[in-house]
């Protein structure tokens, strides 16, 4: 796709263990347009967090990119040096993590942490970023920014901490915000506030958002398009309405069928048996085949190639659902 803000192509990520490489993410490709909200959804261990961490190269020590490219505004990031990455992290791409308490420095005031990024990128101005700090803190809806800027993270509530983390990520006006389960640690009424905040900010600032979550409800309320990951691969990608109305991949269907939508008497759940495979012992072929009600022998030997949806996106499956499921 030309004109994409972020283009990930054939991304492979592996964990080096005892001289061998365990594949965590395989052949992942997607593109995010300017100002778009893109969701990546899947269960624990599916590689969704690893994928977005790879975008700004925040991978753990023994985890590395083994294949593919990551292009942000034309800059190649997958093999770039730290010196090349530095001006992009924070200023081009911001990131928000699941647990703001571990993402924030406990011994530095919140205001200093917001200003730190500004100064690093030479955007502090004459007052060392004080004015801009207060501006972004107001932008993320922190009440009384002057008082909160002087506070330490432990003095804030969970919701205020996540707003602070978002303020830090936004301080340098990035064009892309990566958010890894940003509301998972929050209560549901606070989650609603933060999701609304992210959507509002995205629209006001024209920023793109990649939201990684296990919660299809969060994706439905926030994203324009979504990728479903299973065992390190994207198995389906589609515009948001299509994923919920006409899912093609049996795993997408299984995920949707696992969400309680009323009492058991009225809407019984029919969950798929089993669990995702261990990355070190992934079966050949489609990793979902052992749990898939639609599998055939070919699924167990060869990973299916990508089939395009007519309205954008596509899926990797030999036996997709007929249109109109659910």
């Amino acid at each position, binding site marked *: 796709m030309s004109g994409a803000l972020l283009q990930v192509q054939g991304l492979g990520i592996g964990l080096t263990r005892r001289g061998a490489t365990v594949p965590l993410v395989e052949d992942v490709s997607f593109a995010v347009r300017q100002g778009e909200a893109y969701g990546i959804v899947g269960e624990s261990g599916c590689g969704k967090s690893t994928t977005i961490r790879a975008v700004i190269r925040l991978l753990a020590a023994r985890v590395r990119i083994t294949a593919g490219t990551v292009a942000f505004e034309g800059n190649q990031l997958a093999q770039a040096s730290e010196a090349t990455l530095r001006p992009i992290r924070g200023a081009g791409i911001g990131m928000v993590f699941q647990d703001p308490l571990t993402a924030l420095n406990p011994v530095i005031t919140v205001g200093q942490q917001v200003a730190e990024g500004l100064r690093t990128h030479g955007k502090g101005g004459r007052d060392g970023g004080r004015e801009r700090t207060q501006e972004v803190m107001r932008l993320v809806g922190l009440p009384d920014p002057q008082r909160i800027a002087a506070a330490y993270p432990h003095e804030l509530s969970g919701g205020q901490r996540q707003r602070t983390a978002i303020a830090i990520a936004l301080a340098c006006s990035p064009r892309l915000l990566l958010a890894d389960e940003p509301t998972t640690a929050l209560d549901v009424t606070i989650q609603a506030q933060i999701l609304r905040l992210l959507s509002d900010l995205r629209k006001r600032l024209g920023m793109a958002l990649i939201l990684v979550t*296990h919660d299809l409800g969060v994706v439905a309320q926030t994203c324009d398009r979504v990728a479903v990951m299973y065992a390190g691969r994207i198995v389906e990608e589609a515009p948001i309405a299509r994923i919920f109305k006409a899912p093609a991949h049996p795993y997408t269907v299984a995920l949707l069928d696992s969400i309680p939508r009323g009492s058991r008497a009225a809407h019984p759940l029919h969950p798929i048996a089993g669990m995702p495979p261990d990355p070190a012992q992934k079966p050949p072929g489609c990793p979902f085949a052992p749990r898939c009600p639609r599998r055939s022998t070919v699924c167990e030997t060869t990973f299916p190639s990508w089939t395009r949806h007519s309205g954008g996106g596509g899926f990797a499956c030999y036996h997709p659902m007929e249109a109109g499921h659910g």
Partner: protein
Amino acid sequence: MAETPLLSVQALYKYFPLRRPLMAALAGQAQRRVQAAHNVGFTIAPRESFGLVGESGCGKTTLGRMVLGLLPPDDGVILFDGQDIARLDAAGKRALRRQVQMVFQDPYSSLNPRMRIGAAIAEPIRLHGVVPSGEVAEEVARLLQRVGLPASAGARYPSELSGGQRQRVGIARALSLRPRLLVADEAVSGLDVSVRAQVLNLLADLRRDLGLALMFISHDLGVIEYLCETVGVMYLGTMVENGPTAAVFAHPAHPYTRALLAAVPRADPSAVSSEAPLAGEPPSAVDPPSGCPFRTRCPEARSICETPPPRVTLPGRRWAACHFAADHVQ
């Protein structure tokens, strides 16, 4: 409900004192306390599934621990099968432990990492003499099968099992004493959606087949709606609404219940809410607001809300603690 309740909680109070600096104590400053339960009352009928829902710090876990007899209330009465659990002698307490069992959120921290699964399940069976000692192994195998685990799981260690399997072990262990009430605190919260659905169905099947009553504590409204016939909604140590889940969720009478339901992100992109989310955060449970605890965030609060709200009885075995509850339901 005409039936005698299996569990009856009446006017329960629990406060946790905060550590007071020595100087403050010497200066005669009042002891500050966290309000965990303030005049909480509800009942659970035999075989009923009751859901307790609320956000972190609302006191739902404390309430569960008091029902289990793990924590004494400051005031109020908990009757199990008509007996005051605070007045039981040693033998009575032992009998209560058999009848009221628990399942925790994280079975990994509640299972001994160096004990095989089979031994962990056998332990309570032996201690309470549930079956003759010659039949313990058979009973363990039966329980493993009952919770959907292969018999071979008995020889494994907790670390060799997945989260969903460990939660099944936790359930098997709780069931081993053949309880009448199962208290489950966030029992499916750590699980992935597909595995969560499996465990929810397991709990529902067990309840039906074994005639268990369930007190299911969760922050997840969807899960409560799926599993529980009745629900209690907690806010800042008080129960604000109680009644049949279907009716409460369809026509919430308390503004907090309404806000909570509106905040759940629905897995339906055509139902994106345009309503402004509930503003603010729950106030500190150390100095909860006077009168209605929700009035500081309530979009409908008026001056009368500074006085404690009455428990308004509503049609259909429901009540809500709001001055205006009757206006919302009819």
